[in-house]
C-alpha cells in the first residue's frame, strides 16, 4: 500500500498539477491523500456499517409490526403497540431489573477485584509478572460458554463438589439445588461472569496505573501520606480516566449478558435477562415484531448508558481518536515520557 502512497508516477502527476497557479499545492496533495485514505479505510468502514447500522434500522422498522414468521401474511403495522405491550408487562420489568442487577453487582465486584489484581501485577517482581499475566489471561481467553459449563458443573446438585466442600456453611447442604432459586442461581451466574471478565478490567486498570507518574506517589510518600492516602488522594484521582473507561466498557458488556444465563438456567428461576428475552421471542417463538422491540430496547439502553457516562461522568471514550487527529506530536512526546 505504501507503494501507492509514494508512487513516482503519482508524484509526477501531482507536481504537474501543482504548477497550475489556480490550485494551491497543499489542497491538491490533501485531496490525493484524502482519496487514498478513504480507499484504504473505506472497505472496513462500509463492512462495519453493513453489519450493524443496516440490521438495527431493520430491527427498528420490524418492531413497529405485528409479525410472526409462522404467519408472514398476517403482518400488520401496529406502530408502538409492541413497546406498549412490553412496558405494561410486569415480566418485562422484572427481566429488565434482573439485567440491571447483574450489571451493577458484577461491575462493582469486578472493579474492586480488578483493581486488586492490577496493583499486584503492577508491583510484582519481573519474574512473577509473566506468570501472573499468563494465568489471568486464561479466564479472559476462555470461551464464555465453557466458563458457564465449568461453573454450572461445580455447583450442580449431582456432579458438583461445592455442596460437599461447603457443607459447613449454614444453608448449604447436599440437597441445595443452586439453580432452582433466584438468588442462588443468580449468584452462580454472576460469579462465572465476574471470573471471566475481571482480568480484562484488571488489564485496563494496570495500563491506567502505569500512567500515574511515580514522582507524584513518591512525593506524597515523602510528605507522610499513608498507603491508603497515596491511593485515595494521588493514584486513583490520577487514573480516573482509565477507571471510567473500564467501568463503561464492562457495564455495556454486562448489560448484554446472554451465554451464562442460557447455559446455566435457560432463564428459569426468574433469571431471564433482556438478551435472552429477545432471543426467545425472535429465534425460538419467531415473533419477529416483539423480538425486535426487545432488541431495540436493549440497544437504546446501551446508548443511554453511553450518553450518561459521557455527559455526566465526562468519560472520554474517544481519547484515542484525538491522538490520531491534531495532537499527534503532543501524544508522541507524552508517550515517551510514560515509558
Amino acid at each position, binding site marked *: 500500500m*505504501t*507503494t501507492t502512497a509514494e508512487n513516482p508516477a503519482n508524484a509526477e502527476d501531482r507536481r504537474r498539477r501543482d504548477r497550475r497557479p489556480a490550485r494551491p499545492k497543499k489542497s491538491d496533495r490533501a485531496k490525493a491523500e484524502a*482519496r*487514498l*485514505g*478513504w480507499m484504504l*479505510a473505506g*472497505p*472496513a468502514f462500509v*463492512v*462495519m456499517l453493513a453489519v*450493524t447500522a*443496516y440490521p438495527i434500522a431493520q430491527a427498528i422498522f*420490524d418492531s413497529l409490526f405485528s409479525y410472526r*414468521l409462522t404467519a408472514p401474511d398476517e403482518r400488520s403495522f401496529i406502530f408502538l403497540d409492541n413497546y406498549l405491550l412490553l412496558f405494561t408487562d410486569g415480566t418485562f420489568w422484572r427481566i429488565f431489573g434482573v439485567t440491571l442487577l447483574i450489571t451493577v453487582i458484577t461491575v462493582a465486584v469486578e472493579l474492586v477485584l480488578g483493581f486488586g489484581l492490577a496493583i*499486584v501485577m503492577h*508491583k*510484582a*517482581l*519481573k519474574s512473577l509478572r*509473566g506468570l501472573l*499475566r499468563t494465568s489471568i*489471561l*486464561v479466564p479472559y481467553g476462555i*470461551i464464555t*460458554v*465453557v*466458563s458457564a459449563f465449568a*461453573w454450572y*458443573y*461445580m455447583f450442580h446438585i449431582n456432579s458438583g463438589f461445592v455442596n*460437599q466442600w461447603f457443607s459447613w456453611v449454614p444453608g448449604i447442604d447436599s440437597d441445595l439445588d443452586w439453580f432452582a432459586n433466584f438468588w442462588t442461581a443468580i449468584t452462580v451466574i454472576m460469579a*462465572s461472569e465476574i471470573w471471566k471478565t475481571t482480568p*480484562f478490567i484488571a488489564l*485496563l486498570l*494496570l*495500563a491506567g496505573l502505569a500512567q500515574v507518574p*511515580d514522582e507524584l506517589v513518591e512525593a506524597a510518600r515523602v510528605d507522610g501520606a499513608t498507603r491508603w492516602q497515596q491511593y485515595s488522594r494521588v493514584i486513583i484521582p490520577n487514573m480516573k480516566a482509565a477507571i471510567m*473507561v473500564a467501568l463503561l*466498557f464492562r457495564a455495556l458488556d454486562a448489560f448484554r449478558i*446472554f*451465554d451464562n444465563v*442460557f*447455559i446455566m438456567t435457560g432463564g428459569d428461576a426468574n433469571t431471564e435477562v433482556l*438478551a435472552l428475552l*429477545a*432471543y426467545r421471542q425472535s*429465534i425460538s417463538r419467531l415473533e*419477529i415484531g416483539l423480538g*425486535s422491540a426487545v*432488541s*431495540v430496547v*436493549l*440497544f437504546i439502553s446501551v446508548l443511554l448508558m453511553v450518553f450518561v457516562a459521557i455527559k455526566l461522568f465526562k468519560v472520554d*471514550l*474517544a481519547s484515542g481518536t484525538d*491522538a*490520531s487527529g491534531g495532537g499527534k506530536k503532543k*501524544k508522541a512526546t507524552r*508517550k515517551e515520557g510514560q515509558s
Partner: protein
Amino acid sequence: MAGSSGLTGRQKLGWAAVSVVILVYALFPVAAIFANSFKTQADLGNPTFWPSNWTWGNYQEIFVGGAQELFLTALRNSIGITLIATFIAVVLATLCAYAIARMDFPGKRFVLGTALAVSIFPVISVVTPLFNLWRTIGLYDTWLGLIIPYLSLTLPISIWTLSAFFRQIPWELEQAAQVDGATQWQAFRKAIVPLAAPGVFTTAIIAFFIAWNDFVYGISLTSTEAARPVPAALAFFTGASQFEEPTGAISAAAIVVTIPVVLLVLLFQRQIVSGLTQGAVKG
C-alpha cells in the same frame, strides 16, 4: 514501583502467597472441568473434585464415539469460520489503521468513532433482522452467514488495536532506508514490515479469541451441523441415554476448545496484554 531484588523473607512469602491465590483464582474452574472430562459416568455422580478412575472415555465419545459427528463437524466449523473471519478482519483493519495512522483525511475520526460504536453494539440487537434476512437470501446456516456478522465483533477492535500499534512505528525508517539506497519495496519490506508484523499478529490473536468465543450468532443463525460452531453445539449435546447427563462429553469438548486459547496465552501473553491495553486505554 516494582519491588527491589533484595526482598526480606517475609516479603518473599507474601508474594508467593499472593501468586498462589491468583493462580488458583484463574485456573480453578478450568481444573474443575478438566477433572470432569476424565471422570467415568459413575464418577460424575459423586461430589468429588478429581476422578476416582481416570478415563479417556469422554474424549473417545467426542472423537470416535456417538458424539463424534456433532463435535467434529462443529470443531471444523468453528476453526474454519473463526480463521476466515479473523483473516478478513485483520486485512481490512490493517488497511484502515494504516490510513488512520499515516494519513490525514476528512472523516478519519468518524471512522474510529464508528469502530467504537460498533464494538459496544449489543449483538442480540442485530441478530433478529439478520436471522430474518439470512433466511430470505439463503445465508442462514452457512459459513458465510456467520463470517459476515463475526466481522462486527472482530473488525472494530482490530482497527483500534492496529491504529494504536501503527502510531508507534517510526515511519521515518522507511525514508532512511531509501536514502541508504534501498528501493521503495525493500525499504517497506525490510524496515516497516518487521515493525508492523507483531502488531498485526497480536491483533489477529485478539480477534481470534473474540470470534472463537461467539455464542449468540452461532446459536441464532445456524440450525444444523452445516455451520454450527462449537459453543453452540455444546448446548445440543445429549447423553448416551435419556437418563444420562452429557456432562463428561461436554467437559471433554470444552477442554479441547480451550487448548488453543491456553497455547496462545502461554506463547504470547506479553503481546496480548499490550494489544489489549493499547487499543482500549489511551489517556
